[in-house]
């Protein structure tokens, strides 16, 4: 649905050239939720703004639904942008217009008839659960409600793509979850392709199918969310994984145990239905190995259950090797730390 090819963007600030994006290649499929995670200043905001050309890339191609946007003239681009909805961190609603008028706004821009607008606004307000707030002004709404208006507005022209620019970063955790649930819901109901940028791992883990990690204007790692986050390769990715997996505490525990003697410590990863099976227990029992758990997570990434346990095997070297071998045979991933 979206292909970015060799995207470069640099800014001219006081005669100096400041690079923001350094050759981004990205392909996003129809109907998926693609997350881009990065620290502030990594270029993620510039990247998402390049997808609808709010920022014009210095070079490279932006192909959305088969059309290279960089080659369109102004009026063609305006037409094309109607197929690309966007929501923002600070909502960016018209403060002088009611909820209903805000949602109607893109339809008015597209010169739709009054009856058509009325019908569509009803439908959208129902979708985001704001029927009762139609005549309120944005200043009378909570942050979560404002973002719902933003979402309804972004969906008004039946876009094929929805861009989310830090859409939950200004919201509290509970509201964040309700907005994420809404995004996932419209992704499924409408088959909408969603691209979101965030600095929160939680957002990626909750709803994204695939993820790209951006650092210093480059995508440093990308793939299925599960793969990237269970086996992070790049230091930046590892940092983000630590946001949700207290790795620093683990490091201390491992160091403490290692100092105590020659122990085997392994990270065991479960995926899918294996997460809920007693594979670890059975294997340990068969090989007669005593073990203790130093740290563990059993959770979900979007719909996939996964577990990651760091265990210390207290058997002798040969016994431990056999245990690890057996665990691997049974489909678990084992990494000796």
């Amino acid at each position: 649905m979206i292909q970015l090819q060799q995207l470069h963007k640099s800014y001219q600030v006081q005669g100096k050239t400041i690079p923001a994006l350094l050759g981004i290649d990205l392909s996003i499929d129809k109907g998926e939720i693609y997350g881009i995670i990065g620290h502030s200043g990594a270029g993620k905001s510039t990247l998402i703004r390049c997808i609808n050309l709010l920022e014009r890339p210095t070079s490279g191609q932006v192909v959305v639904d088969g059309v290279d946007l960089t080659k369109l003239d102004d009026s063609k681009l305006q037409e094309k942008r109607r197929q690309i909805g966007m929501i923002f961190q600070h909502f960016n609603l018209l403060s002088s217009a009611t909820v209903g008028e805000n949602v109607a706004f893109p339809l008015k821009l597209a010169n739709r008839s009054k009856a058509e607008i009325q019908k569509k606004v009803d439908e959208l307000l129902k979708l985001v659960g704001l029927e009762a707030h139609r005549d309120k002004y944005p200043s009378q709404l909570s942050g979560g409600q404002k973002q719902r208006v933003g979402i309804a507005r972004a969906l008004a022209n039946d876009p094929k793509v929805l861009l989310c620019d830090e859409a939950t970063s200004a919201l509290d955790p509970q509201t964040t979850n309700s907005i994420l649930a809404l995004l996932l819901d419209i992704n499924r109901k409408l088959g909408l392709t969603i691209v979101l940028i965030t600095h929160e791992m939680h957002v990626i883990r909750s709803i994204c199918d695939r993820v790209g990690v951006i650092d210093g204007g480059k995508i440093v790692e990308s793939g299925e969310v599960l793969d990237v986050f269970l086996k992070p390769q790049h230091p930046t990715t590892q940092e983000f994984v630590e946001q949700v997996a207290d790795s620093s505490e683990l490091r201390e525990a491992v160091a403490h145990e290692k100092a105590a003697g020659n122990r085997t410590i392994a990270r065991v990863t479960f995926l899918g239905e294996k997460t809920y099976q007693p594979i670890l227990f059975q294997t340990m029992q068969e090989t007669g190995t005593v073990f203790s758990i130093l740290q563990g997570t059993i959770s979900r990434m979007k719909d996939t259950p996964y577990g990651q346990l760091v265990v210390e095997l207290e058997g002798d070297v040969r016994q431990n090797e056999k245990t690890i071998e057996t665990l691997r045979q049974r489909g678990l991933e084992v990494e000796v730390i």
Partner: protein
Amino acid sequence: MDWTLENVDWSEIAEGTIDTLTMLGFSTLFTILIGLPLGIILFLTSRGQLLQNQVFYAIASFVVNILRSVPFIILMILLIPVTKVIVGTSLGVLGAIPPLVIGAAPFFARLVETSLREVDRGVIEAAQSMGASNWQIIWNVLLPESRPGLVAGITITTVALVSYTAMSGVIGGGGLGDLAIRYGYQRFQTDVMIVTVIILLVLVQILQSLGDRLVMRFSRK
């Protein structure tokens, strides 16, 4: 001091008031018609905006500053030939309107530019992301979003125009200012002066509170 109002010719006062209101009405109207687009153009061509054009902005801004820095009473005299070309006379109510507009429009344009700057940049960006054209952004985003500021700007300009209309009495512009100068100043009829000042004062109060009320009504923040 004479407090008996013996010199006050009420029919002349009434005529002067009507003249002042006529000048005020037309000059406010034309000031808005010229100043609003000028303010919008100043805003749009300024740095970082939709039609950024530094050369154009620098020139427009320079002209506006010149017109604003010439004291109105001098501008009025300088403009006499121009006024004659535009309305055929430099006297009376008709002759007062062009200098009033040329004096006030650049001032109002700056107020418009300042109010438009207050519009959240993100909202403009959101409209762009929805495929709005520049015209649509001006009509549907910039103007409605800055409405309270624009109304406040119109109020300030109208009040300023009240004192400008009084000044235009110096070059024979008619109205209450003319009365105050001819009777109050030149013939030492203080009572006429006081009556005209009171009427102007009431006029300014009415305009200001009307403007404030409208601003309140349009404010949604």
